């Protein structure tokens, strides 16, 4: 283990967080504190059903609401079909900024209305008449992959395609052979819940047209340029026409990497020539904004009677909801981590990005890994119980060491799982055997 000899002057000290006092006194300025002359308010008209054809949308009653300014539909959006990861080359475009002929989840935006006050915008949105023809819907990841399942996507299969494969794959060694050699084959099924990011500050922005023809967008995005670039792509306008200002965010947890409010607010600012405020209500944040994916994880492990895991097969179904957003990326991150921080010579992993008629899931704290850790660490305990092996010992014997190859063929460096487990045991007053205490991440002493 290396330790830095040089003493540090500034790092390693608990400097008080620069904005902390502003946050606790309420002096910090968030999007909701900003007000501009002539600022108008935007609200979405949303689908009340999980899957339907749109026959017609009628704004005539909404237009009578005092303070009504106008509305936007898919016809106003220059590039209405997009995919947020287009910037790193992910295809195909799939999500609709505003629904066209079909809605695919409860809460999918069909149009937005703009009004003088937030109250008027709410009222106008509630008066837009939707004529919908409901379609059969699918909500379960494994149901969605059955041949007769209702089709969610525009290309006909309810899974994302990875370079010709229906899932992201890891293939390492030969699990079929290893399972034959194992003394025990232990299986498990684990279900992660979809949860909300639940930031204190809900998702939103204000787009303000400037005298020079540019638009300034005050936003609580987690990624300034990513959001700016995606907005420019959706609106088919030069990026130099946009200026994004943010940087102080009341909680993100991954939910504010989706690009949802900025394109429509900017479009509204350009169309109506006024600053447009588009901020989610708590209800929208809970029910419409993306969630953590509801993953279902199946594990089959081949284990020797002395507790060496020699084979691990993982099949995971990540529920991306109606549109994949960041999930294709999270699926790959999950695949990389689905064998866990253990050195297992034979690994086979299949991770599916599955479309259902649920609100989209997307990035969330621990994206891809939280669910892997949950399932694997429950599975480790299951193995320990079935083999009657101490759960500390099982983990320490199988923990990855520096120099080991991971199933995705990267050589491990910076592994310290052994030391971390030993430290936790000490804290909990668990007496590990001398053999386990002597283990290190830097050698395989006591493992084989």
């Amino acid at each position, binding site marked *: 283990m*290396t*330790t*830095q000899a040089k003493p540090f002057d*500034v*790092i390693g000290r608990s400097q008080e*967080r620069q904005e*902390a006092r502003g946050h606790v006194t309420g002096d910090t300025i968030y999007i909701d504190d900003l007000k501009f002359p002539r600022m108008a308010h935007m609200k979405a008209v949303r689908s009340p059903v999980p899957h339907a054809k749109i026959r017609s949308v009628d704004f005539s009653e909404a237009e009578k609401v005092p303070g009504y300014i106008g509305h936007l539909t898919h016809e106003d959006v220059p590039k209405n079909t997009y995919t947020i990861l287009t910037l790193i080359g992910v295809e195909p475009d799939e999500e609709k900024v505003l629904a066209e002929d079909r809605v695919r989840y*409860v809460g999918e935006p069909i149009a937005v209305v703009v009004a003088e006050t937030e109250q008027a915008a709410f009222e106008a949105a509630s008066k837009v008449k939707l004529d919908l023809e409901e379609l059969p819907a699918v909500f379960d990841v494994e149901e969605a992959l059955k041949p007769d399942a209702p089709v969610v996507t525009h290309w006909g299969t309810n899974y994302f395609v*990875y370079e010709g494969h229906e899932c*992201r*794959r*890891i*293939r390492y060694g030969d699990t079929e052979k290893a399972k034959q050699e194992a003394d025990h084959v232990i299986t498990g099924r*684990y279900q992660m*819940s979809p*949860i*909300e990011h*639940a930031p204190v500050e809900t998702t939103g922005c204000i787009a303000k047209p400037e005298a020079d023809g540019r638009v300034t967008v005050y936003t609580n*995005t*987690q990624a*300034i340029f990513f959001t700016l670039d995606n907005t420019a792509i959706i609106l088919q306008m030069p990026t130099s026409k946009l200026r994004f*200002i943010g940087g*102080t*965010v*009341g909680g*993100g947890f*991954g939910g504010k990497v989706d690009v949802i409010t900025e394109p429509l607010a900017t479009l509204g600012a350009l169309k109506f020539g006024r600053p447009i405020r588009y901020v989610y209500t*708590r*209800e929208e944040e809970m029910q419409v904004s993306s969630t953590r994916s*509801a993953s279902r994880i199946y594990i089959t492990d081949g284990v020797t009677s002395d507790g060496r895991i020699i084979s691990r097969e993982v099949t995971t179904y990540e529920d991306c909801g109606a549109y994949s957003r960041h999930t294709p990326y999270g699926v*790959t991150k999950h*695949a*990389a*981590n689905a064998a866990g*921080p253990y050195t297992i010579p034979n690994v086979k*992993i299949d991770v599916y990005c599955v479309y*259902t008629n*649920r609100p989209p899931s997307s*990035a969330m704290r621990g*994206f891809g890994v*939280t669910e892997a*850790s*949950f399932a694997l*660490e*429950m599975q480790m*305990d299951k193995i320990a119980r079935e083999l009657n092996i101490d*759960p*500390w010992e099982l*983990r320490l014997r199988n923990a990855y060491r520096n120099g080991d190859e991971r199933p995705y*063929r990267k050589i491990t460096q*910076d592994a*310290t*799982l052994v*030391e*971390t*487990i030993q*430290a*936790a045991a000490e*804290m*909990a007053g668990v007496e590990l055997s001398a053999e386990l205490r002597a283990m290190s991440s830097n050698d395989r002493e006591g493992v084989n």
Partner: protein
Amino acid sequence: MALLRGRGIAAVNYPTGMNLGGDPSQALIHSTPTGAFMIVLSSVDLGQGLRTVMQQIGAEALGVPFDQVHVQTADSDTGPHCMGTFASRATHRVGNAIINAANEAREALFEVAAEELEAAPEDLETDGEGNIRVKGVPERSMSITDVALAAHFKHGRTISGRGMYIKPKSDVDPETGAMDPDSTEAHACTVAEVEVDTETGHVRVLSLRSAYEIGRALNPALVQGQITGGAWMGVSHALYETTAPYYPAIEHSPADFTNYLMPGAQELPEIESKVLEIPSANGPYGMKGVGEMTANSPIPAIANAITDAIGVQITELPITPEKILKALEERDAQAQEAA
């Protein structure tokens, strides 16, 4: 009824950064005429204290006091590119970019100081208190304010630096999954103790004892903030939160915090943590990302503790009283059948 106690453990790794598309961030640093250093970014502070940590890294790398450095973020007109704050990447990527920018700015600073002090730049050092001096000759010293003034008004030079850090793109092999998705690995191990009320199904988390190995704690108080917040989120994820209480059914989806349950202060367990610092190969000053991982080990540790307490493994989150009571009923029914 009975109150059953159980203990569970979980050990996890967490990758720092998520790269598949190329993952860059940049930083610009310049000195004002009087030697205050401005770090300009477009990175976003989510409330975790990014600005403060960036200020610390900048001050450390420049060799100037913390208060002499300021961080300006995030305006796309002035801040250089940053991919964003996610994937436990910000401190790693932006921190490295700031160190690179600081090295360039420090070089310019030393060149001006060298002329003023009539010494070679390589013979100079900062004292961490706002001065530059000749190594071994502390009386040949001048304040950074005076160096900056000289640079601006005498030498006609900028004291500035450009910094960039990129984790290059890594394509995934579609057949084998071979890839290089991350920069380093942080680790955690949690021991959870719970008490399960077999009459109500209610679970009380009594304690979470965790060790975290995070390379380097750049700001220990902010690390503690992440640990406490993550432990809370772990409890919440394991026992309370869901947007679909009867998943996959979509009914009963909560609309606000009155029916989207989260633990309050009363439900918080005793949280004890130990931070190990084993520097990483490529993080700024050896750090590893602590942002996301702190919620990950408490979830399975709590689930395993519940199994230990009641003898039945419940594998669907959240582990609500309803699920516990059903599991206990099934267990008892099976026991009766066997008898």
